[in-house]
């Protein structure tokens, strides 16, 4: 079965979404991530969506859910690299993703996760 790979980088997990996802793939990723956070006791998750040219309500909801469930499992999620056109469209659609942390790119996202950990 098709799967989006999850990379482990120290205490963080990195997911780079590079394909035009169909809904089942998004749901599988959601399950896989929850399982990996629990197995590795990861403290943070980076989701790189810089290659995505579109985020609709389904993918938006997936991002929201991942962010929420990682929080419950004591891991912070940062979504990085959202394209301007995608951001404008999401806002117009009415999806503001209020509880989701964001960063410009993977590097900044990583910094943000470290800062959070250090502050704890």
């Amino acid at each position, binding site marked *: 079965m098709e799967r989006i790979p999850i990379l482990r980088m120290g205490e963080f997990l990195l997911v780079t979404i590079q394909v035009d996802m169909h809904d089942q793939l998004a749901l599988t990723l959601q399950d896989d991530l929850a399982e990996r956070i629990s197995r590795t006791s990861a403290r943070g998750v980076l989701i790189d969506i810089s290659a995505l040219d579109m985020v609709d309500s389904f993918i938006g909801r997936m991002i929201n859910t991942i962010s929420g469930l990682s929080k419950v499992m004591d891991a912070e999620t940062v*979504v*990085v*690299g*959202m*394209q*301007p*056109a995608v*951001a*404008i469209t*999401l*806002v*117009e659609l009415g999806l*503001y*993703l209020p509880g989701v942390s*964001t*960063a*410009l*790119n993977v590097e*900044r*996202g990583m910094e943000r996760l470290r800062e959070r950990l250090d502050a704890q």
Partner: protein
Amino acid sequence: MSTLSQRTIDAIRSNESQLLASWSVNLEASGASRDTRIGHSEFEGQTREFLRLLVAGSATGDTGSVASNEWSETRAFLEKLSRSRALQGFDSAHTAHFIFSLKRPLFDLLQKEYATDPAELANQLWAISEMLDTLGMHTIRTFQKSREEVIARQQEELLELSTPVVKLWDGVLALPMIGTLDSQRTQVVMESLLQRIVDTGSEIAIIDITGVPTVDTLVAQHLLKTVTAIRLMGADAIISGVRPQIAQTIVHLGLDLQGIVTKANLADALALALKRSGYQVGKAS
């Protein structure tokens, strides 16, 4: 619908040079061919080509329906002509006159040809007149379309010129907005700001609206949407220079300002941006 008779077409063919000559005289009289924007030989080429296409088109096609296939070459020629005239800055009358001034020479020719047959003369005059009118109309339509395209392009260029995104500091961008904002302008400006954030990797964007006298509902909403989009991209936005009137509009609209940082002026906004970026500014004593 009427068609040109073979006799008429033959007459045009065998009198081609004479037709061209009196057509040029007509064009010259109106001053159309003396304009320096078009060279003499270019003009001559255009008249010759048009007459050739006219004969070719009317040999097969109906004179009343230039939209049909037989006229496609003629249409293409006229479209090219109108477009180049529009770009050269001519008005629509000039462009239409190019075709209408061919009427006189053609009428003269027909009158000679059908001197003994008034019924056929009327018939053929009508056909020619109908044909030239439709072609003339087509020219004007194309001309207008080309002009609209020119205007649209200029509007776009103006928009881009009037929206400078400036770098205030490493990682800090500012967008000083001046003048009345309409919805379209706001949209374009905001998009270029968002793109610059990505290009420069800036984490803070200041939108300064000191120079904006008032905003309407749509623009206010657009400002707030932009702030949200900036946050989704992973950067922060500060709005500075909010006038009392604009503050009233925003509150009146019941727009949610939660999580949106505002500062009285650009200086304060920059101070906050520097502080957030970890800089300390002090006097070197």
